[in-house]
């Protein structure tokens, strides 16, 4: 499994909205990757959502990954998982998922990005770059300069995350990110599909 062509948009589901509807809208708008993230949902609920989102991702030729739950990713035959620093370690997940599925790891410093690369990640979710309301964070934003440093240290694709919007998205690609990941910039927009489309346009039509 390979990542989408750079630069691409990854949309992460928002616990306040139906993830299937949101994924559908994001895909319509041109998102190339969807991550199902819902910490409080039951296993059967996650599985049912995953099956529905996977179908839609296949239709749009987008990647579909699941946050934390390797079990649900395997049961729903998703394309991979995204693992935070408190989730299952990448080596254990790799043994279960094999080489054909994608493992992404969250990193919040260039040092963590290097470790993630060493542990066999396929991509690194790097952030949060800017202040964000989407997740409860125990640390300050790491800023775009940190992204530039990480990009110079690791060869893995970096997906920038945290406080990304249509104004700042392109600059992060210029700093070395392969893609950007958003939650609220799409989910909280009145028209999620067009919000996704605007983001895709911003990162793909840069003045370079």
């Amino acid at each position, binding site marked *: 499994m390979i990542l989408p062509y750079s630069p691409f948009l990854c949309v992460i589901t928002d616990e306040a909205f139906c993830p299937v509807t949101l994924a559908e809208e994001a895909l319509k708008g041109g998102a190339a990757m969807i991550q199902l993230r819902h910490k409080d949902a039951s*296993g059967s609920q*996650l599985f049912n959502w995953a099956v529905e989102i996977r179908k839609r991702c296949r239709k749009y030729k987008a990647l579909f990954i699941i946050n934390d739950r390797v079990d649900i990713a*395997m*049961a729903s035959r998703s394309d991979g998982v995204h693992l935070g620093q*408190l989730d299952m370690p990448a080596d*254990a997940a790799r043994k279960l998922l094999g080489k054909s599925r994608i493992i992404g790891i969250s990193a919040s410093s260039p040092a963590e990005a290097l470790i993630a690369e060493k542990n066999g990640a396929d991509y690194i979710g790097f952030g949060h770059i800017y202040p964000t309301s989407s997740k409860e964070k125990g640390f300050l934003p790491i800023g775009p300069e940190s992204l530039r440093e990480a990009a110079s240290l690791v060869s893995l694709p970096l997906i920038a995350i945290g406080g990304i919007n249509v104004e700042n998205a392109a600059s992060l690609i210029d700093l070395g990110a392969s893609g950007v990941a958003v939650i609220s910039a799409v989910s909280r927009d009145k028209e999620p599909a067009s919000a996704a489309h605007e983001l895709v346009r911003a990162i793909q039509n840069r003045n370079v």
Partner: protein
Amino acid sequence: MYHEIIRKAPLPRISLISGGMDDEREILLQQLKRLPRSVPCMVQIREKHLHSKQLLLLARKAVELNLSGNTLLLINERVDIALSAGLHGVHLPENACPPDKLRAFAPEMLFGCSVHSPASALSASAAGADYLLFGPVFDTPSKRRYGPPQGPDKLGELCRTTSLPVFAIGGITPENANLCLAEGAYGIAALSIFRDNPETAETLDNFYRLLYP
């Protein structure tokens, strides 16, 4: 893994469930070490407050204890962690992903399902559950907020709708366990025995004598 074991020995009739008690003192591991080696039992690791990484670490430590061959180690819901740590089985809450979807990539795993009604027992059975867990049969403080206990009659009704082994849970004591067996239960399950630190071994022995006459 389970199927390999079951060929040698039947499913234990005692199921112990850990509950939010593991902390830095690793009480779960201490309790596991205290299990009488002669008593066949299943132990379900159920530590919902732990992150996946901590849960995997705990499961691996439990496996490393090299418990007696009479003890089966299970984990609540997370088949990925069971596979990674080399546990014997997974216990699925009623709202978990159904066992047939998980067995597809964990063919040797023992799968048990919590059920609260005959309808739920039928669907768990159709999805390939190896055993069922039904309750609360008797009054138990931890389940009071869900309403009154189901009672032994409901347990009997459920046991008659399935050929799978049914474990009764909820306020089970050596004194009332016979009522459950009379209704067709295969075994008993409890959180409290495991938590009741000093008397664990004694209570287990009492259950053992009752369940393995």
